């Protein structure tokens, strides 16, 4: 710029010179021209220079822009690197670079923090020195440099917390591909570990909790079981005496009594009955609780079943001067399949409830068909009374255990409040529903509906009943019962029926009696000393191979025992206290069945039974003299049973000497009555074992076999004896 200013003033000077020289045109023309030329040249130069300058200027400007951009770039690059650096620094994961020799070349703040050492002090140190396990640490960097990367390599940093880390890293190279070092990021997995640990702990706790829960569950189940067992035992303990009380009351009621006495006895009987009902109720509830309530599916006649049950209430209804109205839907199929006993129980509870709370008016029992299809019918039962009714707010509670609408009522009307609870359970367990509507002082209506299956089967019950009516009374019953009172009661009842009877006070005695006598049926108590009813039955079925009908007498109608009854081969059961009609009909039923069965069986198998005796020897010895034969046989019959008995008893008492002697005495007679030689050998073995007191189990079986053989021999010889006697 300044140059330009200078050239301008020079131009001015030259111009002035021109004016001066104009005056001196001639003189100075050449000079002027020269000068002009010079000027031109100069100008040209100037122009050139100016041009050059312009270019330079332009270039300068360009440079400036580049510079600016560079500046910008470097600025942004700086920013970017600062940004990534800050990112790296901000990372909570320690990040280091190491040289191929394993020396730390750089690191981030996290590394500084975690090692609690300044950057300066870290730089250049050995990578491996920062870990609890330097050997493993050196493997990390070896691996990085060998493979070029490392993934999730676990190490523990030697800081004050012993931070667990996972190493991830890779090498970095220069533009020629030479490895310069490795970048390694250590991911702090303290949290992860903590979570893992917590997870493990949680799992352990969960497992522990499951275990505890299982134990608790087992305990609870055990508790339920033992509760049932307890109830079962209790009910046995209560029912046994109750059995005697009610039974004897009934017996005494049949004798001549004054009106007063009859009244008192009736009171005893009613109370007893009520107590039994209560015990049954408690047992039923326990069964529901334990999930043991089962329902039969038997064909029965609904109409007859209900009306015969309602007969039970007739007396009470008359006594209270009430009316019993029955409405039975004629469209209901005659025979249905269901559980008549439970249905009875439900209606019985409802009707007796209605009866209890109604003092005037009527009780209406209605049975209606609601719907039916090919297979099923749905029937609604309702029991309506005109009694005291129930306040609305109490309606919900009446189905709970031990609830009556008001605590006051139980004092006036009695009852435990279990009845409706059971009804509800019974209905709902069968998939039905129950509801109640009531108005105080007007009455209540209980309605429930149940589903029954249809059937084409004819019920069997009636057939049974007809059979009973023409029944010959030649029945011999063995009662197995340990309690003297119950023995007496059974005696009285059986005598009343006109049956022959025999009593055994435990299973062992029963078994002996069965072997010596012919009974038609056995009434078997379950809980007895020495040998209980289950064991005795098992013995009768499996050892004696007898199919004699066995009816369990049980105070405990819980399923546990009933299952056991069938399992050991009992035919039926009668609940205590024994209802005499039930007793009678069950005895008759089983005796008849057995007799029919026997007749059929006898034809098949009478001849099949192996005879134990062979009279050839006796015949030759006596020269077939019937008198001598009879004498010999009767000698055998006289002496053998006591020997059998003594043999068995001595085995039980482990009196080996007596066992030896008893068997010893039996041996000679074997060959005389022609019992197979093998049994004689067996007897000799028993003798040998008895002297050495060894192999008691084997003895046991052999004694049983000998017993069977000799008992049968006696039976056969008895027959022979009678034949001989009759032929005389």
């Amino acid at each position, binding site marked *: 710029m300044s140059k330009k200013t200078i050239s301008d003033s020079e131009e001015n000077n030259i111009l002035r010179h021109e004016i001066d020289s104009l005056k001196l045109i001639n003189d100075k023309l050449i000079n002027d021209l020269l000068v002009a030329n010079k000027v031109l040249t100069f100008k040209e130069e100037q122009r050139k220079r100016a041009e050059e300058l312009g270019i330079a200027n332009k270039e300068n400007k360009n440079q400036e822009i580049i510079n600016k951009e560079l500046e910008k770039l470097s600025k942004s690059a700086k920013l970017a690197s600062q940004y990534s650096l800050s990112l790296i620094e901000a990372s909570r994961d320690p990040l280091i670079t190491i040289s191929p020799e394993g020396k730390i070349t750089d690191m981030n703040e996290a590394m500084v923090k975690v090692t609690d050492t300044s950057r300066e002090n870290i730089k250049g140190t050995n990578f491996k020195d920062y870990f609890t396990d330097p050997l493993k640490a050196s493997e990390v960097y070896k691996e990085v440099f060998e493979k070029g990367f490392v993934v999730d390599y676990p190490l523990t940093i030697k800081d004050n917390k012993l931070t667990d880390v996972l190493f991830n890293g890779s090498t970095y190279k220069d533009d020629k591909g030479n490895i310069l070092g490795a970048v390694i990021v250590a991911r702090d997995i303290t949290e992860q570990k903590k979570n893992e640990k917590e997870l493990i702990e949680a799992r352990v706790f969960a497992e522990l909790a499951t275990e505890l829960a299982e134990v608790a569950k087992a305990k609870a189940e055990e508790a339920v079981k033992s509760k049932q067992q307890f109830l079962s035992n209790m009910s046995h303990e209560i029912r046994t005496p109750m059995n005697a009380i009610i039974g004897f009351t009934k017996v005494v009621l049949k004798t001549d009594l004054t009106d007063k006495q009859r009244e008192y006895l009736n009171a005893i009987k009613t109370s007893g009955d009520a107590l039994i009902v209560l015990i049954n109720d408690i047992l039923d509830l326990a069964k529901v609780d334990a999930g043991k309530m089962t329902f039969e599916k038997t064909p029965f006649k609904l109409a007859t079943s209900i009306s015969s049950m309602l007969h039970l209430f007739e007396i009470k209804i008359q006594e209270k001067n009430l009316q019993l109205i029955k409405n039975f839907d004629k469209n209901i199929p005659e025979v249905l399949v269901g559980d008549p006993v439970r249905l009875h129980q439900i209606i019985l509870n409802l009707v007796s409830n209605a009866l209890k709370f109604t003092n005037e008016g009527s009780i209406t029992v209605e049975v209606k068909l609601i719907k039916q299809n090919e297979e099923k019918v749905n029937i609604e039962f309702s029991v309506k009374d005109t009694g005291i009714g129930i306040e609305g707010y109490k309606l919900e509670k009446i189905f709970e255990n031990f609830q009556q609408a008001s605590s006051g009522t139980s004092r006036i009307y009695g009852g435990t409040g279990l009845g409706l609870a059971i009804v509800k359970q019974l209905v709902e367990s069968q998939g039905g529903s129950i509801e109640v509507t009531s108005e105080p002082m007007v009455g209540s209506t209980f309605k429930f509906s149940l589903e029954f299956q249809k059937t084409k089967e004819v019920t069997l019950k009636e057939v049974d009943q007809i059979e009973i009516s023409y029944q010959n009374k030649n029945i011999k019953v063995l009662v197995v019962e340990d309690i003297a009172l119950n023995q007496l009661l059974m005696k009285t009842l059986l005598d009343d029926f006109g049956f022959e009877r025999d009593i055994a006070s435990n299973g062992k005695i029963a078994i002996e009696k069965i072997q010596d006598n012919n009974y038609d049926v056995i009434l078997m108590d379950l809980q007895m000393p020495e040998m209980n009813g289950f064991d005795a039955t098992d013995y009768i079925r499996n050892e004696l191979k007898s199919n004699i009908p066995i009816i369990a007498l049980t105070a405990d109608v819980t399923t546990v025992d009933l299952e056991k009854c069938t399992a050991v081969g009992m035919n039926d059961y009668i609940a205590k206290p024994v209802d005499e009609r039930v007793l009678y009909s069950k005895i008759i039923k089983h005796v008849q069945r057995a007799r029919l069965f026997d007749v059929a069986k006898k034809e098949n198998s009478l001849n099949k039974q192996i005879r134990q005796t062979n009279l050839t020897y006796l015949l030759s*010895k*006596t*020269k077939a003299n019937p008198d*001598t034969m009879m*004498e*010999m046989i009767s*000698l*055998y019959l*006289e*002496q053998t049973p*006591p*020997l059998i008995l*003594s043999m068995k008893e001595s085995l039980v008492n482990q009196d080996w000497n*007596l066992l030896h*002697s*008893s068997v*010893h*005495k039996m*041996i*000679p*007679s074997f*060959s*005389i*009555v022609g019992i197979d030689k093998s049994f004689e050998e067996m007897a000799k073995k028993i003798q040998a074992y008895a002297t050495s007191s060894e192999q008691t189990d084997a003895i046991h079986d052999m004694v049983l076999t000998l017993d069977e053989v000799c008992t049968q021999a006696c039976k056969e010889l008895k027959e022979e004896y009678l034949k001989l006697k009759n032929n005389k």
Partner: protein
Amino acid sequence: MNTTQKIKLFLVDDDALLLKSMELDFKEHTDFEIETYATGELCINNIAKKPDAIILDYHLDGIEKNAMNGIDTLDKIKSINPEIPVIMHSSQDRIEIAINCMHHKAFDYVIKSETSFIRLQKNIENIFKIRKMKHELNWYMDRM
């Protein structure tokens, strides 16, 4: 010995059936006079009847705890009259018992079995053979 008189034999056994059976056997095969006793005591009580031989059950005290056993009875018989030959009859085939019986001066020891009757019969024959030989020997000794 008076040969015109019947030989008198005592059978002692607590097994009534066996006793009867033996009695039948002897009655059939011999013309002995047979007396049967169910216990040692009964036999001793009748020892005054002077039997020519006794067949005695070894195991007499079967299931009667206080009854005399065979050996006791044997001893008792021998103490009353050592001349009466006693054949022990037992179902036990054991040498100790046999030896024991011989020590107690039994004439022989016969096992109860199917063949026991024949053995007993033979035994009794032997008894009388020996007795006869003894008599003869005595007679000759007297002569000398």
